[in-house]
């Protein structure tokens, strides 16, 4: 499941990259930074990205998860650091 989520996240990143001054480094796969120290997204960009990811996971994998909520900030480390950490978090939210 995690690999399929990574693929969806990378596809969303590719679509979003056309609008970004500093594109998400999708060639790095799971290690591609999203938000934080080396990230390509500012906080508003992260909101758009996560909303697009939630929609894509629903449409393509029929996974209905909420990623942008208070639970995400209860984690010791942000789940939004890289494609891989976000995929891990999304997988953990699947019941």
């Amino acid at each position, binding site marked *: 499941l995690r690999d399929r989520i990574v693929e969806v996240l990378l596809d969303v990143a590719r679509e979003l990259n056309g609008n970004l*001054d*500093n594109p998400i480094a999708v060639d790095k796969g799971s290690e591609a930074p999203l938000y934080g*120290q080396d990230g390509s997204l*500012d906080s508003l960009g*992260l909101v758009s990205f996560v909303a697009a990811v939630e929609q894509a996971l629903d449409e393509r994998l029929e996974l209905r998860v909420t990623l942008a*909520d208070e639970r*995400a*900030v209860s984690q010791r480390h*942000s789940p939004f650091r890289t494609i891989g950490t976000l995929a891990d978090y999304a997988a953990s939210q699947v019941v």
Partner: protein
Amino acid sequence: VLSSLSTTTSSDLARDVIGGQHELTIPIVDAKGISLGSLQPVTRHHLRDDTLLAQLTRWRNTARLSFFTQFEATKEGTHTWLRDHVLTDGGRLLFLVNAGTHPVGTLGFIRLTGRSAELDNLIRGERIGAATLFLHAERSLVRWLFLTFGLQWIEAAVLAGNFAALQLHHSLGFEVKRRAELRRVVDGDTTVLLPASGNEQGSGDAALYLTLDREVFQSTEQELGI
């Protein structure tokens, strides 16, 4: 690093900055030391800057649903707010966040005491500058507060639905300490979100109260290699 610097125990500094007697600019640099911009305090001098007042008003309106008090701002109202509240309070400073030299938003603090302060007025008005500009702007302000005033912790209050601000704070080590259901009080054109008491019906909104302890911030900086 944080414990090795001298501290200022009063809010005289804030008053001197507001009055223009003390020039202050806080550089915004990333973890590699690359300059991204600066934090420039709003002072009484800015009350005569019509362009800035218009810009601040536009930003306040764009971001109004992110705040606990929601209303349509006007340039005159922004002038009054600055003159009568922001620039008369020795326990607060409002900064312009500059990308290079271009103002793109605001960030400030309120309720400065000898031990703590609360972040306030976080608005990214323009999507200009580095993606990490506001992350490092907030980091730079937090660091300056800890160093200058010897604070033990810094607080922030955000609406639970304001994921952008929540994530920004969390990235610096802020932790949610408390959650409160809110009720909406409408007074004319102004809506105020207030904590709902035990028997009151909440509006579905909630406030999250976050805290960043000095030691946690220090370890966050070490993780970033700063």
